[in-house]
């Protein structure tokens, strides 16, 4: 028995060296699954916690399901006249609108930096790249004062406008355009008399699309997850996105435990759309851009 087993082990390791197929490597598989349990555990917890009434939340074992799911959902939905759904809508406006405009701005700039030779190109590239390394959040306070002076503090624009500029997005778009838009195609279009704008819209933009999906997703998630910017720019609760709204709910929950159940239900509902979006768009992501980006 042992002879057979050891012979098989030798055989399989030799065989896989050549073909890369064979018996499962269990230790790596188990470590990876353990890491998955770690990352999924809090999400599993919030699913069960969302089914609990305020009383059950603090009295029953935390992973046991409760009886209050629908009640919690109705309570959260009717909280201050459906304010939660307004926050969700706001998050969608900030993230969707901001990421769309940001992707367009990045595509334009990336195409210009990748496919035009003009005086000042390297200066523009260097300055924009310095913006990648700058901790953007430390700018939130001076941004607030400037926005306040411009008279647009506490408006949708105060959150949207600063979210449009994304130096990292421009950087990725440049790298992607360099690889995906052949110079010969542009030259040919020019000789055929196409305008520069037409070349960008009809030729470069479709070719850059796979890379731009990544730029869009990264910026969408970035804005969706942002807390300090809306926290600083907005004072009117009805303009809050989910992050600031849920923070406020949790903060008030310290006095009234029932708000904890609202915050838990709210957290669950806000995770679902992003998880679905991520799973659906996973195949379209060109995340190798991230690791390859510094080589370009």
């Amino acid at each position, binding site marked *: 028995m042992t002879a057979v087993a050891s012979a098989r082990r030798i055989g399989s390791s030799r065989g896989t060296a050549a073909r*890369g197929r064979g018996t499962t*490597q269990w230790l790596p598989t188990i470590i990876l699954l353990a890491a998955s349990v770690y990352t*999924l555990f809090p999400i599993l917890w919030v699913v069960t916690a969302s089914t609990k009434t305020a009383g059950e939340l603090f009295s029953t074992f935390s992973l046991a399901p409760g009886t209050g799911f629908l009640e919690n959902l109705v309570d959260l939905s009717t909280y201050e006249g459906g304010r939660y759904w307004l926050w969700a809508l706001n998050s969608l406006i900030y993230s969707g609108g901001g990421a769309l405009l940001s992707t367009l701005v990045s595509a334009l700039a990336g195409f210009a930096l990748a496919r035009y030779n003009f005086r000042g190109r390297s200066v523009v590239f260097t300055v924009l790249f310095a913006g990648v390394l700058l901790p953007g959040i430390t700018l939130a*306070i001076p941004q607030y004062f400037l926005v306040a002076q411009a008279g647009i503090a506490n408006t949708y624009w105060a959150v949207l406008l600063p979210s449009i500029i994304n130096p990292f997005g421009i950087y990725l778009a440049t790298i992607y355009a360099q690889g995906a838009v052949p110079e010969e195609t542009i030259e040919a279009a020019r000789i055929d008399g196409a305008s520069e704008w037409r070349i960008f819209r009809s030729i470069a933009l479709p070719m850059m699309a796979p890379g731009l999906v990544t730029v869009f997703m990264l910026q969408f998630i970035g804005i969706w997850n942002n807390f300090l910017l809306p926290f600083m720019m907005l004072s009117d609760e009805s303009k809050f996105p989910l992050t600031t709204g849920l923070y406020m709910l949790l903060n008030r929950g310290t006095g009234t435990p029932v708000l904890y159940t609202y915050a838990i239900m709210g957290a669950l509902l806000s995770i679902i759309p992003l998880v679905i979006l991520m799973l659906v768009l996973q195949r379209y992501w060109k995340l190798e851009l991230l690791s390859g980006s510094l080589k370009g």
Partner: protein
Amino acid sequence: MTVATAQPRHRIRPRVAPWAFLAPAIVLFTLFLVLPIGYAIYLSFVGLRVQGGAFGTRQQVFVGFENYINALTDPELVASLGRLATFGFISVPITLGGALLVALLLDLPRVRFARFSRTAIFLPYAVPGVIATLLWGFMYLPTTSPINYVLSAIGWPTINFLGAQGIFGSLANIAVWASLGFNMIVLYTALRSIPVEVYEAARLDGASEWQIARLIKIPLLAPALLLTLIFSLIGTLQAYSEPTTLKSMSNSISNSFFPLMKVYRDAFGVDNVSGAAAMSVVLALGTLAVSVVLLRVLQRRTFEGTR
């Protein structure tokens, strides 16, 4: 009319188009990055002084480096930097080490559930810091913690996650949970871009996967590792939403716990805008300096690698 035939050749090198394409980016970059930096620098050099005797008005006057000296000698800022360093020394190595480990494991042949694990580990990236903190906060709260529930059920002492010492590990855990997946993807995609032939020969010579990882894969990953290190350091310096959210669940977090929290409080809580501006400038320049130094190292290494 004859001039028109020369037109296409002239248009081969457009001068206006690239600037027109860059215009939105340059305008927004100036308005929301350059101008705020300039304004922060301006604010950091002025202060409010009462002028004109007892009934005088408060006016903005140039005060030189006074705000910087006050900021850098402020024991609260120094203490908050110390707390941030403690947090960073726990969270950054664990995040990068963990991400490297799972990326290398995913890259091994014959690993089952690799797709599932990759998606599961990447998932927290889509969860905002506020919500990640909210979830883990309930894991930490004595009344709701499933970890402490199990510990006390088997008669072991419970963990004080939100106490003065435990808070660092608890905050670091949230950071690791949230950023492990992103760093894993960066490293994993870098690994996939290494041609198989590079280590196939080593495999045929009987090298173990561990030797291949240590001697071939990790050295080739150096640029990507440095990239994740830079992102992690910038991310750590900007830690704000996690401690701010956890503050409502723990007494161990003051409102000047991390540098950025202190900046926010000084600017809005105690109306010391100039001091806050000086601290913002110091933090931004400090991060930029560290990143630039690390990038220099990276460039030298990749340059030597290509030679």
